[in-house]
C-alpha cells in the first residue's frame, strides 16, 4: 500500500504505470501461439543471394509476399478457419553447398505463420492473391512452396 505522505513514491509509480500503459497501447504484437500449435510454413523459392538467417521478403517476381500479406485457410464449405498475416520472413539456404565465408549465399525466404486450433485436413489456402488448393494440414501444420515443388519447365524436347 502506498502511504499518502510519500508523494515521490506515488509520483514514480504513477509515471511508471502511465508510461507502461502507453507502451502497451502502442504495441501491435499478436498474442503468442502455444509452441506446439501447428504452423503454416510458406517458402518463397526465389534463390536470391542474401546473408542467411536475416529478415527477408519475397523478391521479384514474388514481391507480393511480405510481412503483412494476408493468409486465409478455408474449408470445403468456404468457411474461414484461419485469417492471419505473414510475419517477417527469415532467409534460409537454398542448397547444401559450402560457400565458405561468402557473406551472401543462394537463399530462399521462409515465413512461419502460427495456426493455433487448425485441425488436420485438406484445405484451400490463400496467400495474398495466390490460391493453393488441397493443402494437407497435419498435426505440425502445412508446408507451401512458391513456386510449388515438382514443377518441371515445359522445355522443347523435354519428355
Amino acid at each position, binding site marked *: 500500500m502506498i502511504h499518502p505522505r510519500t*508523494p515521490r513514491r*506515488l*509520483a514514480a509509480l*504513477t*509515471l511508471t504505470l*502511465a*508510461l507502461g*500503459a*502507453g*507502451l502497451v*497501447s*502502442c504495441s501491435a504484437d499478436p498474442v503468442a501461439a502455444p509452441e506446439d500449435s501447428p504452423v503454416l510454413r510458406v517458402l518463397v523459392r*526465389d534463390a*536470391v*543471394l*542474401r*546473408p542467411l538467417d*536475416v*529478415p*527477408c*521478403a*519475397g*523478391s*521479384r517476381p514474388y*514481391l*507480393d509476399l*511480405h*510481412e*503483412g500479406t494476408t493468409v486465409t485457410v478455408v474449408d470445403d464449405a468456404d468457411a474461414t478457419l484461419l485469417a492471419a498475416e505473414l510475419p*517477417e520472413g527469415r532467409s534460409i539456404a537454398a542448397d547444401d553447398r559450402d560457400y565458405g565465408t561468402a557473406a*551472401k549465399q543462394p537463399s530462399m525466404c521462409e515465413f512461419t505463420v502460427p495456426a493455433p486450433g487448425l485441425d488436420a485436413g485438406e484445405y484451400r489456402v490463400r496467400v495474398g492473391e495466390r490460391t493453393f488448393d488441397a493443402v494437407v494440414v497435419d498435426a505440425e501444420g502445412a508446408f507451401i512452396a512458391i513456386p510449388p515443388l515438382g514443377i518441371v519447365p515445359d522445355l522443347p524436347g523435354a519428355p
Partner: protein
Amino acid sequence: MNRRIAPLLLLAAALTLTGCSTAGPDAPVPGGAEMLPGAVPSAAQFASDTDDPAAPRFDAELVDGTPVSGSELWDGRAVLLSFNASWCGSCAENAPMLDALAEQYGDALSIVTVAGDDDPAALDATLRQTPPPGPVIRDSELTLWRAYAVVEPPAFTLIDHEGRVTRMWPGGTDEKTLETALEGVITAH
C-alpha cells in the same frame, strides 16, 4: 490531486500520446517537388571514371506527380538511388544512415528513393511516418527496378555527376561502405 504529482501526470500523458502519434492522413506526402535539391554548391567538386557504364535513363513521377528524368536528377551532382518499399523492414533501418548522408553532403548529393510499392496508401503512410531524405519516385510498375536489375529491396545505386553508374549494392550496404564510395565521386562539398 497533489500539486507536485500533477505536472508528472501531464508529462506522462504527453509522452504516452506522442509515442503513438503519426502525421494525419490529410498531411502532404513528403517526397515531392519540395524535396528536389537546390543548386549544386559552388565549392562542390566531383570525380568520374569514364570506364563506368552510363546509368539507364528514365522518366518518372515523384509522389506528388511532378515529372522527373534521370538526366535532370544527376545533372552535375551525384545521385544515390535507394530502392525501397513500405513493407521492407531493413529499408526502414537504413533511414538514419541516409538522413546522415543527406545532411553531410547537402546539395552535392541527391538521395532519391525509388518506391516499388503497389499500394499507394501504404507508401504515403510510411513517408508521413518516416520522412525521406530526398525526392521519392513512385515506381509501382517496377519500371526503374527492372532497369536497374533490382530484385528485392533494399538496394542502392550510386551515379556520378556525369550520369555513370559507379556501383550497385543489391541487398543494401552499410554507412561506411557508402561513405567510402561517395568520397570517390564527391571530392569536395
